[in-house]
């Protein structure tokens, strides 16, 4: 039972319950979004995170208030994991006036400075460069903070990603590059688009540690991020983690996903699912009782009902304010 001993040493029961609650919250939130989108009430492009929950939650369990998490366009899960107000998250996705970004950003741009959550971005590799800036500022200002930049397998093929890895390494910036390789950049397979097949191997060329983990295994993600974050905090520079995973829905809602092998999602849901894996481990190791986990499931279900009712009822931004926030003087 090396797992149990490892877990007990690294995370308290409270922390484990919080991680489970985080993953379950994202799952129910996203499953519900899938249904609501199909019903026609959600504006714009919506990219769902269901299936990948262990990744964002495993990252955020290692972050402090001084740290910055760089979000991606698949933004809902990381925003919830980082602790942004879930009511404001839902309202932003619905482009409501009191959403996180006052309805100016929408689903793909969830950003909440007070939670240390930065800029979900549609320039899919750009978060790594922005994260390097947050890391440089943290070091110059001696805040003790680090930056963790989430990026997908698609974003990892942009030039800015490679440039930023190089810059982070030569300047030993306190940054962790977390590649969420979900197998597809839009509709193009990572197996086709990634030379050599492994993004983590690129780390060696930039003189930083690079590891690969099962992105559906909360504990594996947690451990890898813990090590990388400690390295960054100690001033030893950046690391790259490649978390291999699959999304349960399409690139965006409305994607028929005809490019995916038949049965892929079913296989992942059945045998690899992060919530199932987590439950099996903690129950098997006698860390948490089934009833406690089931109780969380029930509480989260009720919360999500309230979150959606609130978002759907909320008004759109005031039209008189639509030119506000372009410049710092527009308050």
């Amino acid at each position, binding site marked *: 039972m090396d797992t149990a001993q490892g877990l007990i040493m690294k995370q308290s029961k409270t922390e484990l319950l919080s991680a489970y609650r985080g993953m379950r919250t994202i799952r129910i939130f996203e499953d519900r979004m899938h249904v609501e989108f199909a019903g026609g009430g959600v504006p714009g492009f919506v990219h769902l995170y269901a299936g990948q929950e262990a990744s964002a939650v495993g990252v955020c369990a290692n972050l402090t208030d001084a740290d910055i998490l760089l979000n991606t366009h698949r933004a809902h899960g990381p925003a919830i994991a980082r602790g942004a107000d879930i009511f404001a998250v839902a309202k932003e996705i619905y482009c409501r006036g009191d959403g996180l970004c006052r309805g100016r950003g929408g689903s793909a741009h969830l950003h909440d400075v007070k939670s240390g959550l930065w800029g979900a971005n549609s320039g899919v590799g*750009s978060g790594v460069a922005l994260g390097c*800036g947050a890391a440089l500022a943290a070091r110059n200002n001696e805040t003790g903070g680090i930056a963790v930049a989430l990026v997908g397998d698609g974003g990892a093929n942009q030039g800015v990603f490679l440039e*930023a890895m190089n810059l982070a390494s030569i300047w030993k910036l306190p940054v962790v590059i977390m590649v969420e390789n979900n197998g597809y950049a839009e509709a193009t397979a990572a197996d086709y688009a990634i030379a050599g097949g492994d993004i983590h191997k690129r780390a060696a060329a930039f003189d930083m540690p690079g590891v690969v983990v099962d992105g559906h295994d909360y504990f594996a993600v947690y451990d890898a991020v813990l090590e990388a974050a400690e390295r960054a905090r100690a001033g030893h520079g950046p690391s790259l983690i490649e978390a291999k995973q699959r999304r349960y829905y399409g690139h965006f809602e409305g994607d028929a996903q005809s490019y995916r092998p038949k049965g892929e999602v079913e296989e992942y849901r059945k045998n690899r699912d992060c919530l199932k894996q987590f439950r099996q481990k903690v129950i098997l190791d006698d860390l948490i009782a089934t009833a406690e986990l089931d109780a969380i499931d029930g509480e989260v279900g009720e919360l999500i009902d309230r979150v959606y009712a609130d978002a759907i009822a909320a008004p759109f931004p005031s039209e008189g304010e639509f030119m506000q926030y372009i410049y710092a003087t527009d308050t």
Partner: protein
Amino acid sequence: MSKKTYRQAINEGLVQEMHRDPSVILIGEDVAGGAGAGGDVDAWGGPMAVTKGLLSEFGPKRVLDTPISEAAYMGLAIGAAASGLRPVADLMFNDFIGVCFDQIVNQAAKYRYMYGGQDRIPLTVRTMIGAGLGISSQHSQCLYPVFSYFAGLKVVIPSGPYDAKGLLASAIRDDDPVIFCEHKMLYEMVEEVPDEPYAIPFGEAKFVREGEDVTIVALSRMVHIAMEAAESLAKEGIGCEVIDPRTTTPLDTESIIESVEETGRLVIVDEAGPRCGMASEIAAVVAEEAFSALNAPIIKVTPPYTPIPAAPNLEKLYIPDAGQVITAVHKVMGRE
């Protein structure tokens, strides 16, 4: 007060702002020069020696030489700005915007709006514009109309040392991303420049010369071409009012319209291209807002619609000259 070149005025402005505010950092390719090379420290100060001496004065924590990675260091500068630093990022030649366009127009310009006003991005991007050195089409353009397209950016085009120093102070102190466009043919220009720090507000055009007959709006280096033409035209008894907008965002349309309402004639002299440029924009504003004041069609004096050639004779043909401005003024005066 003493005579200083455009280069010295900018260097002095940077030094003074860096002393004034410890959060100002300088970042870019060869802003010091010689990083890791084993020879002179602070070897270059940029290819035009504008930032010479700053590494020695402020140290490597505040003056950072980058690899040739515009996308990464521009993104980094935006992230640092969002974290409360005031980076001055050096894009060297504005033509290189191509490799960091996403950072400037999708990240910096939209950061505040898209995130609902949560952030301030006090970033200054210094960059060189303009033809005249024979360095061809990828080092010689005037791309401020491109920057001016994007709401969220501010754009500054100083035409001389005094304005350069004062506008640079405003750019660095501003809480929004500012693109500061230095014309490379002006670095040797000399003018009286105060020794102490001062700031020139954005959006206030300068009336460089007063006149009753024709309004000439001229941008960046073209201010001097317009002045050359205006002096010559004065001898013929034609009074030209020469206006330098100094910033294209915000653009002081009020001063331009006010002048056109007096003179009834407008010539715009711009080194940026003839299509979708600042000349087109200013012409459109005046046509919309002061059409009834016009006694003649507006004339734009710009380069032709072509990439910039390297050959000196062709490059000379490219850049608007005083002769073209005189011809345009004659035309709006009905003296062809």
